[in-house]
């Protein structure tokens, strides 16, 4: 029996980034999803869009090379690429709602088998942090989620129905966790790749929703 491995965050984000197609306009959420930009594949061109109105920015700026006027959505100093463009906030969200964004990658507290997800409010805390998440969820062509499979206390996060207030209904297309890669199908979560050493039955034990196991189930791919 192979050793059970939980996937590192970088591996999780690399796997989603492998799904990006040549020419896609990609919006990466704050936090873990920004790791998707570390995955490089010279065979394709990805155009990064950030809510604050920058299209076509490049990698994080090295120390000493930062430009105080150029940040991504997470406030990280990034570098310009040839062809980069800047717009104001209303135009930036015009692109989002107008269907220009091929994929947005976000984190989440919960994802449900019908494609609902929750990532902006925990009822025990007053207020919420929406940022651009609701606009991106409603407007991007695809929503991908990267999150841990369970809470720190072992609670379920892949659910039959979200228990927290949702960000948007029925929009999640693909989900990566530290246990594997899932597609959201009309029938629910389909496990398509499993973390090394994990059987589908063991992943099901960590999951409230009933998993569909792909006929073509594979071990998790670390590189394309």
């Amino acid at each position: 029996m192979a050793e059970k491995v939980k996937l590192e965050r970088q591996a999780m984000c690399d796997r989603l980034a492998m799904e990006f197609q040549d020419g896609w306009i990609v919006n990466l959420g704050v936090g873990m999803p920004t790791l998707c930009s570390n995955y490089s594949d010279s065979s394709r061109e990805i155009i990064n869009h950030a809510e604050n109105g920058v299209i076509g920015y490049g990698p994080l700026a090295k120390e000493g090379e930062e430009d105080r006027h150029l940040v991504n959505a997470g406030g990280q100093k990034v570098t310009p690429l040839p062809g980069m463009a800047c717009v104001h906030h209303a135009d930036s969200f015009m692109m989002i709602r107008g269907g220009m964004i091929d994929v947005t990658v976000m984190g989440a507290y919960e994802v449900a088998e019908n494609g609902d997800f929750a990532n902006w409010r925990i009822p025990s805390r007053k207020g919420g942090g929406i940022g651009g998440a609701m606009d991106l969820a409603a407007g991007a062509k695809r929503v991908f989620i990267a999150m841990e499979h369970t809470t720190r206390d072992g609670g379920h996060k892949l659910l039959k129905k979200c228990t927290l207030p949702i960000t948007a209904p029925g929009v999640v297309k693909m989900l990566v966790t530290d246990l594997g890669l899932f597609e959201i199908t009309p029938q629910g979560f389909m496990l398509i790749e499993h973390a090394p050493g994990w059987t589908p039955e063991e992943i099901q034990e960590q999951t409230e929703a009933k998993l569909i196991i792909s006929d073509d189930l594979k071990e998790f791919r670390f590189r394309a």
Partner: protein
Amino acid sequence: MKNKIYKTMDDAVADIPDGVTILSPGFSGVGVPRNLLAALNRQGAKGLTGVSNNAGTVDENVDIGTLVEAGQMKKMICAFTASTHPSQVTPFTRMYNNDEIEAELVPQGTLAERLRSAAAGIGGFYTPTSVGTELAEGKEHREINGRMHVLEYPLPGDYGLIRAWKADTAGNLIFRLTQRNFNPLMAMAAKVTIVEVENDIVEAGELDPDHIHVPGIYVDRIVRIPEDGIWI
């Protein structure tokens, strides 16, 4: 030509009364009118409503959170009324939890479009953003082209505090890279628009008309950021 140039930040905000709505741009610390906010903090106007992407951060830099902490804000309208990390407890978070400040939470794109609508003289707009969520509850819904939308209203301001890269004496503004963010929208949605500018204010005619981001007709007051001002 009307003189729009003010000598100091304090002069430029001196007449802002209690109880008005302040539009305060900036995103991730870039394009924040920190010098004007510091002056408004010194001036001491109270009972203000603030419109901003967030309600302040945990860092030490002057932003809208400085006025929140000083008790000058009655209400905040923003896209974050809780930090993304529970560990980041801002002055706003403490006051909001104690019911010492009001807040309205608005999705970021809706916030931007509400400002744009106010500037554009549009009575509102239908957006698919927030449909099916708690935030859409109680709002007018309408199905358009087979998709459900909610009605959102314009969000005008009394005073817009703006940070620009370049300006001329006519008030024409140019921003640099992601400094632009909410700045043009708030400059155009405010009744009185006050600008802090990072470069020397040039004579009208020296900026290329094709490269202006905000025409000077929207701008009332301009102040050059002094050497010892806040440059972050």
